[in-house]
């Protein structure tokens, strides 16, 4: 029973991270299309897409946040392996727990602080120059993604500590 819930929790997190990453990917594709449309527009009919710079900035910000959980799940973050190449597996496991702890703590701290900053951004009407796109949109996406990162970290900690080897 316990095993089953662990697996389904794991699957749920993985599915979420996949959806997030793909959404970010499609945002990137859309940004490329907007930019190219803007280039074609201004070199043919002399009209670019208003605020293409702002759209790119905001879209990129959201996309990068959406990419973060998948990167963690795939152990995509670079680690220096120079000094620990010959360590025992148990040492590596302990070091892994430490870095997962740090990652989880950092993710939740980011999520919490970005929530505060996001509310502030909303209150103070932070927005882009021409299109008045509100900055708090990016904060919202960022907080959700950081939370997912934190839960992925918790999940890995939990499975490692229980002796499982879900990856």
């Amino acid at each position, binding site marked *: 029973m316990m095993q089953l819930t662990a697996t389904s929790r794991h699957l749920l997190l993985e599915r979420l991270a996949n959806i997030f990453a793909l959404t970010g990917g499609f945002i990137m594709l859309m940004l490329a299309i907007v930019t190219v449309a803007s280039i074609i527009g201004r070199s043919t009919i*002399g*009209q670019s897409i208003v*605020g293409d*710079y702002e759209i790119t900035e905001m879209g990129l910000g959201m996309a990068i946040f959406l990419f973060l959980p998948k990167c963690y799940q795939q152990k995509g973050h670079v680690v220096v392996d120079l000094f620990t190449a010959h360590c025992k597996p148990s040492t590596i496991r302990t070091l892994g727990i430490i870095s997962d702890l740090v990652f989880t703590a950092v993710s939740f701290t980011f999520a919490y602080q970005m929530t505060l900053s996001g509310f502030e951004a909303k209150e*103070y009407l*932070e927005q882009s*120059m*021409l299109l*008045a796109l509100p900055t708090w949109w990016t904060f919202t996406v960022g907080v959700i993604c950081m939370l997912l990162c934190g839960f992925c970290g918790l999940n890995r900690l939990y499975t490692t500590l229980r002796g499982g080897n879900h990856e």
Partner: protein
Amino acid sequence: EAEYTFKLHHMLPPVSNAQVNFLQPWADKVEAESNGRIHIDIYPAMQLGGKPPQLFDQTRKGIVDMSWTVGGYTPGRFPKATAFELPFMPLSARITSMAMQEYAETEMQDELKDVHLLTLHTHFPGSLHSRTKDIKKLEDLDGMKVRSPNKMMADALNILKANTVFMPVPSMPSALSKGVIDVTALPFEVVKPMKIHELAPHHTEFKGDRGFYTQFFIFSMNKKSYNKLPDDLKKVIDDNSGVPLAGFVGDVFDAYEIGARKDAVDNGNTFNTIEGAEYDRWKDTLTPVTEQWIEDMNDDGYDAERLLDKAKTLIEKYENF
């Protein structure tokens, strides 16, 4: 060793007019008048992190003790101040800055309540700089790709049927050299350091009772940082802020403008002047921007006519100062 060390954060390079002729001399003066008890470390070029629109908040929250930034980078944040961004409002930087500082002291307490205001000021009225052709009349902007300095000017340029683009200042030179933009609206004070006059050799200046447009800058201090000072040191800061400081900064920007314009002259560039009947035509064509502003401000619950009137009266007051 100073008793109080403050961090002053801004976005421009250390060789900029703002740092060399305004911020650094100001910091030195404060240090000298406090007999070395206040020391100010200047961090240029966003060295302490964040983007230029965040500078005001960094001061408000006490991340830094002081900051200097462009008010228009945070559109919607200082609605009353935008009266000074309207087309054909400004006079010289000195006059407009002093007027604006007094306007801030009497009208903008609510918008600026979270910081200790040192001064609000403007740059010398901006001109147009074109890459390909002379801009001699209204119609010349039709279909041109123009980089706008802020939202207000974007509205104005749209009325002139220009294709408005906004991009960060550092992207401007390469965008101009590649023809991604044809025209940019700037004071010569920015043209000189960015070498815009080498890329856009056709300048258009406005000669009439008012300048074309301006931007405003906010030089502010964190409230706690100010309040922790003893009264005698508070006085040192007070002696170096407000309308007199606005006048000083205005002078700095006016003086620098003259030298910066000379660079463009020495480069053999062409200068066009919008004056007389053509000037009136520009002014008339752009009145909808002001009308729209009044309507929007009234919708938001401000007494727009009164604010505009006040701004104009103050500019006239300091014109004859």
